[in-house]
């Protein structure tokens, strides 16, 4: 087990190396020279040369890459021009709101989707099943952006116009309890958008499981619906459920970008988009890299958890 964990952790190194090279190529080779963004079009040649030297852009590319990696590894992340804050502090402060906006929704919709999937699989082909499948297909076609706009309009804006107590339209307050009213609507939205995809997926998984012989045997022994669903089928589909929740992490990240920028919640996505708007190049590069690290680490941890849950996952 320990060797497996160590090997998984070691496998993160080449992946993160690849990510860092890609990020470097995108921003330092493809992207515009940040010097022009800082100095504008009317800079004198001397200014350009001195700023290039200051930012280290006059060095060869591989030296620039190594310098950037050294900064990243020693947590010397620099200072944000647009936010007037150290980048490391911006990042650390952004993690909390980002998790608050996405994690409860992820848990909620995963739970509901598993439940609906089991229900559909058991009563396959009945009216309930068809209703859920049609609903899920429609839900999958909804655009995240549109759901956000209309949910805010109908659930937060219109009630407040009429003087009713409802969700806050935008905004955020730090603190475990004070942030609750602000994160409620964003979480409901991400739950609503993702529900269609997950219900369809878990339905397919559960249908496959219901066709297995042990279910037929249990039925033949006269086991009740609830026992078959909750005691046998649910236990056996735990692995796809865990993997699916892990696969959802990127979806959660993209949802947090949209939700944070729309509801003005100071999470990672909001800060990154703000940096893009003000062309704050060091922030964009550092945030991209750090979010990538977080996701790779989360994936690895989930893989290790999976191997602990399922004795069949081969450790070699």
């Amino acid at each position, binding site marked *: 087990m320990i060797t497996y964990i160590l090997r998984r952790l070691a496998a993160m190194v*080449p*992946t993160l*190396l*690849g*990510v860092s*090279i*890609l*990020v470097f190529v*995108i*921003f330092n080779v*493809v*992207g*515009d020279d940040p010097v022009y963004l800082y100095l504008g079009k009317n800079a004198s040649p001397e200014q350009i040369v001195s700023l290039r030297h200051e930012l280290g852009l006059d060095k060869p590319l591989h030296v620039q890459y190594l310098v950037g990696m050294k900064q990243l590894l020693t947590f010397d992340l620099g200072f944000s021009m647009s936010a007037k804050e150290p980048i490391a502090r911006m990042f650390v402060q952004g993690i909390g709101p980002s998790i608050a906006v996405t994690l409860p929704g992820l848990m909620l919709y995963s739970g509901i989707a598993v439940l609906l999937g089991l229900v559909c699989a058991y009563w396959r082909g009945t009216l309930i099943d068809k209703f859920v499948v049609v609903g899920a*297909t*429609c839900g*999958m*076609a*909804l*655009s*995240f*952006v*549109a759901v956000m*706009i*209309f949910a805010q*309009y109908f659930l937060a*804006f219109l009630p407040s116009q009429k003087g009713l107590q409802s969700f806050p339209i935008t905004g955020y307050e730090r603190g475990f309890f004070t942030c609750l009213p602000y994160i409620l609507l964003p979480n409901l939205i991400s739950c609503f958008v993702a529900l269609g995809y997950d219900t369809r997926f878990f339905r397919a998984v559960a249908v496959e499981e219901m066709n297995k012989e042990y279910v037929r045997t249990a039925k033949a022994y006269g086991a009740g619906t609830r026992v078959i669903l909750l005691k046998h089928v649910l236990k056996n589909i735990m692995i796809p459920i865990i993997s699916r929740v892990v696969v959802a*992490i*990127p*979806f959660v*990240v*993209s949802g947090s*970008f*949209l939700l944070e*920028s729309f509801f003005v919640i100071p999470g990672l996505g909001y800060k*990154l*988009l703000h940096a*893009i*708007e003000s062309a704050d190049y060091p922030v*964009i590069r550092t945030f*991209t890299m750090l*979010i*990538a690290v977080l*996701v*790779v680490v989360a*994936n690895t941890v989930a893989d290790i958890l999976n191997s602990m849950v399922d004795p069949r996952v081969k450790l070699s």
Partner: protein
Amino acid sequence: MTSDAPKALGQSLLQKSLRKFRRDKFGMAALAVVAVFGLIALGVKAGLFCTLDQATTPVGDQFVKPFAAYERRLPDGTRAKAVSVFGTDIQGRDVFTKLVYSIKQAFAIGLIVSVLSVLVGVVLGCISGYFGGIVDDALLWVYTAINSVPFILWIISISYAFGRGFTGVVVALACTFWVGVYFNVRSEVHRLKEMEFVLASESYGASKWSIIFRDIVPNLTHLIFVFLSLDFIAAVKNEVLLSFLGLGIAGEPSWGVMIANARLDLLAGKWWEVTGATVLLFILVMAFNMLTDALQDAFDPKKVG
């Protein structure tokens, strides 16, 4: 032996798949919807109606309601009484014209991105799967690096680095979407290359490239169809997302630009622009999702009897 067995014997896998697809009512309905959208896109592209010029010039006062009488500005400067189709936007441009023009935008982005990413994915997947070795290791490394980061981060970074606009959107989407095609093609090639018909070609002395293009690629048809459909609609949806984040198409209308710009109009009760774009997007995405399902059912060799 059933009576239709001889008929089935004379059919290729493709013929069987097509017949199965034609019997799929939902799939055919979805295909019809996509075809109608496609024809409209072609018409706009050919300049028959709803040109860029018409979509960007004001035709009347701002925020004329849908189906309301208003004074329409004609090209020669005079005004005439008319009934609006789907209202006008904040600058007095015709919302219906913008919506129809955006169909062309969606198809341009969807087609270019899906064809590019499938092409790159299939070629690299074949090379990686068939030749193996160091090329495979290198490509797999790139795949792992791209795939282990949320696509939205790559898409945002690349379109930022390329500069806002159509090219940036297309490059960003194609650069990320190919990895899904690549990995699936690679595993399928791994499976196919051990099969008898490939081994037979090898023993006849066929060249490696001839084996890839004559024996392996035709057996990837189902993957190619499904990924074209999947990536098309993913591209259209991501354009909306990028436009919303301020990194999308600039200077021309598209559903994403319309939804992003008109979201403040909604708060003032001007619902038609954002609703129109949302509904059209919904219909197209729904049709493509159903089409993808039908293609998967009809063309997957494991499911065709």
